[in-house]
Structure formats: structure tokens, C-alpha cells
């Protein structure tokens, strides 16, 4: 497989989505309440970093599938850095580069792709950066 660079679709991140995730998984004031967010280190109500990671993985998986690369799931993250907050009504997308492929994976009948993924907002500013491994189904032998 040749090394590929792909752009994902874009997903909007409205207030309700931020608050719904935060209530369930990250109920800290700056992810729940606009005023608390404004007074926090982030300067506004913003999405949990874990929500950003989950959306980024959805977006990169869908980008791979659209390119006919049979994405199964993410299996590890060597490194992830949160660069800036995702505020209410920002939208995010992923630019990804497939770095290499190996014929082993923790998921049976899969190969591993190592992926460099930059999560960008609507101003093309970097929100997060991930170096991740994903499982892709091996070609079917029929």
C-alpha cells in the first residue's frame, strides 16, 4: 500500500454535545457551564479532551473507510497532545498521514497502520495531535 494522506469530514461541536459528554464522563465546571469556563484556564466553555479524541478517531476511521481502507478500530496511541480548546460551535476535522503498515495487530486478522493525525478547527488551528495505531482488516483470501 502506498503511503496516503487523507482529509476527514468536518464535525460541528455544539454546546449541548459538549455538555452531554461532560455530564457523563468529565463533569468539571469548564466543560459544563459557560461562566465557569470563562473563568477557567481555558477561557470559555470547551469540550473535554477525551471527547475531541473520540471524535477525531471517528473522523479518521471514516476517512480511511471512504478511501477503501478497511478500518476496524484504534488500538493504541503512542502520543497525543491537546494544543488548544474546542469551544462551543467550533467544528473539527482531521488531516491524517499513514506512516507505515505492519502485518501484526492486537485484533485478529488485522494489520496495523501507524497514523499521524492532526485535529484542526474551523480556523485550521491545531486542536490536538495524535500518533496512533489502528487495525485494518487483512485482504480477504478467497
Amino acid at each position, binding site marked *: 500500500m502506498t503511503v496516503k494522506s487523507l482529509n476527514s469530514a468536518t464535525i460541528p461541536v455544539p454546546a449541548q454535545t459538549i455538555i452531554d459528554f461532560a455530564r457523563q464522563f468529565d463533569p468539571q465546571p469548564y466543560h459544563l457551564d459557560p461562566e465557569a469556563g470563562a473563568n477557567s484556564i481555558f477561557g470559555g466553555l470547551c469540550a473535554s479532551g477525551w471527547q475531541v479524541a*473520540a471524535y477525531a*478517531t471517528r473522523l479518521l476511521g471514516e476517512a480511511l473507510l471512504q478511501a477503501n481502507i478497511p478500518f476496524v478500530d484504534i*488500538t493504541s496511541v503512542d502520543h*497525543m497532545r491537546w494544543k488548544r480548546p474546542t469551544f462551543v460551535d467550533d467544528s473539527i476535522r482531521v488531516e491524517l498521514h499513514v506512516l507505515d503498515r505492519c502485518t501484526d495487530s492486537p485484533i*485478529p486478522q488485522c494489520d496495523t497502520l501507524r497514523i499521524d493525525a492532526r485535529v484542526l478547527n474551523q480556523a485550521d488551528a491545531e486542536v490536538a495531535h495524535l500518533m496512533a495505531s489502528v487495525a485494518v482488516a487483512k485482504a480477504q483470501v478467497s
Partner: protein
Amino acid sequence: MSLVLRNRWFEDLPVGEFHVFGSHTFSELEMVEFAREYAPRPEFTDPEAARQGRWGGLVATPWHVTAMWMRMMVNYMEVYAQGVNDGRRNGAGVGVQQLKWLEPVRPGHTLTYTYEIISKSDKVVRDRWGIIRSRNEAFNQYGNKVMTFEIDILAERGAAQ
């Protein structure tokens, strides 16, 4: 004296400190609800499709397992840092490394989440915050490790004494 994380300053958090944040039992419903938003593919959202799929049943998507770590940590801090309303409870995460999902998590599985401080950086962020690195793990009810990662979290440095 309550020796727990966010009612103490950066300087007071010792390398080697270990906490069990708590346990959570994953239900089929919450797994499907999470997947509908973050992994909307039949093998994660449809129990029947999942039964015929590669795991022989529904499994939690990886970030669901990890997001629940965050919830366990926040709950734990709420109990132990009660009444603390200054910077000592406002640390944000800056980055993660060596995150691995090791085994499938199925409906009814109970994960127990642990935290250990493994290092402290000399770096000072915005003249105010230090960085605490911890190793975090989740174990299922059989004692098998299902997830591990390291995370760097900001902790406010104490005012000059």
C-alpha cells in the same frame, strides 16, 4: 489530613503515590449510546451485527473505556477535594502517551481504574503550573489489564512560602 491529589499543591504530590479511583460496570445500552455518537458503525451500535462480527458480541469502543477513567478520576476528586475551590482542583490534562487497549470490554464487565504518579517535570507552565505524569490502568473483573496509559496533568504550584 487528607493525602489526596487536588487538595494539595504540585510540591506536595509525591512520585509513587497510588490511588484506586473506583469501578464501573459497562452496560450494553451505554456502550451502544456511546458508539452511536463516536463510532457509528454496526459492529458497535447493533448487538446483532456485533454477535456476527469479529468479537462475537458487542464490545465497548476504546475511547468509551478511556473516558470512563476520566469520570472515575473526577468522582474521586470530588470526594477527596471537597471544599477546595482554588487552583488546586483545576488542573487540565496536556497530553497522553503509551495508551493501549489490551482486551475487549463486554456488557456486564466491571473495570477498576488505578492511578500512580510516576514523575514530576521541572517545567513551569504559565508561571503557575507544574506537570504531574501518572500511569493509569483499568482491570476487568478477572484481574486482566484492559487499558494502560500515561498522562501529564497540570497541578498548581504553591504560592511562595
